């Protein structure tokens, strides 16, 4: 017997029902020690106001951001200079004092500049933080004026380095 069955899909009913599904994720942020200069004066003129062999002086301002590790973290700002050149002042006659805000400890007293090692300007301990907008400090230079220096213009490059762990 032959039987044909006609199947007819007469209606597809669309049921409009709101559906929602959620999934969670753990968002992790790792914050590490960081440090940077935001500004360092590109030139510092060492000047003096008299002509009686008093010392030259000048100030190098700088701004920085720093964050050191909570545990055993340290940080530093150091400076190393180059020689002034033939006939000019001796680096041995160049020294500086430091200023820094509470985020760091400025060099304790007059510090001799060096061409061979980086010397401390500011030290930082564990869990040190500058302001979000940066902190400011400075190196105040003093250069002895010796009679043996030939007249003229001399320059030395001072390289400031900041680091944090």
């Amino acid at each position, binding site marked *: *017997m*032959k*039987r*044909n*069955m*006609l*199947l*007819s*899909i*007469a*209606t*597809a*009913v*669309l*049921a*409009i*029902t*709101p*559906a*929602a*599904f*959620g*999934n*969670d*994720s*753990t*968002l*992790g*942020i*790792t*914050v*590490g*020690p*960081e*440090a*940077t200069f935001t500004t360092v004066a590109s030139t510092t003129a060492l000047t003096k106001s008299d002509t009686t062999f008093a010392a030259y002086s000048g100030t190098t301002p700088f701004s920085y*951001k*720093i*964050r*050191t*590790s*909570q545990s055993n*973290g340290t940080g530093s700002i150091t400076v190393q200079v180059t020689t002034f050149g033939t006939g000019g002042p001796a680096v041995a006659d160049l020294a500086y004092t430091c200023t820094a805000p509470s985020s760091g400890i400025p060099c304790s007293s007059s510090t001799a500049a060096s061409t061979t090692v980086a010397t401390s300007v500011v030290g930082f301990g564990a*869990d040190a*933080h*500058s*302001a*979000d907008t*940066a902190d400011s400090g400075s190196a105040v230079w003093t250069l002895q004026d010796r009679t043996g220096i030939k007249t003229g213009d001399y320059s030395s490059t001072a390289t400031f380095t900041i680091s*944090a762990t």
Partner: protein
Amino acid sequence: MLGFILLLPLEGVGDIRTTTQTMTANISPYGKLSVPSNVSLRSSGTRFEGSLAGNFTVSYWARTSDVGGGSITVQGSSEFSPAGGPSIGSVTYLCSGATLGIGCSGSQTLATSTQTPVVTLQSGACTGGGSPCSTQEPNTVLLTLSSQNKPHYKTGTYSAQITFTISTL
């Protein structure tokens, strides 16, 4: 004794019957998504030169009605723990490359108090199989998250839970 012989035709009489059956298919709006269980944001350097950033892909399957639509949203379920680091409100994100629907426009900011948009699904949207649905299955959208890298944050790892929700109608 009478005998009856029942004669049967050698061939059956043609018997064609037509019946109509109504079948209904309840096609409901549908949505499902998948996100990594862990997403990490970190600095790309050590000089505050960039934000704390990371990205990840949200995979989703969706079907919306012809008169409906839908959305994928995200909300912070908790603040970052421990304290001393970023807040949920400091995290922003961009949505790019949504393969179904429209990714969020511009920079969005995470919040614990409200759901913020990731993808908006149009009516008649559906995942996979090609026209009129998408060719991709699952559909995906790339989220790029970032948080400002502020010096006052204490070093360490902070975590918070965020919840993605897909709603379809």
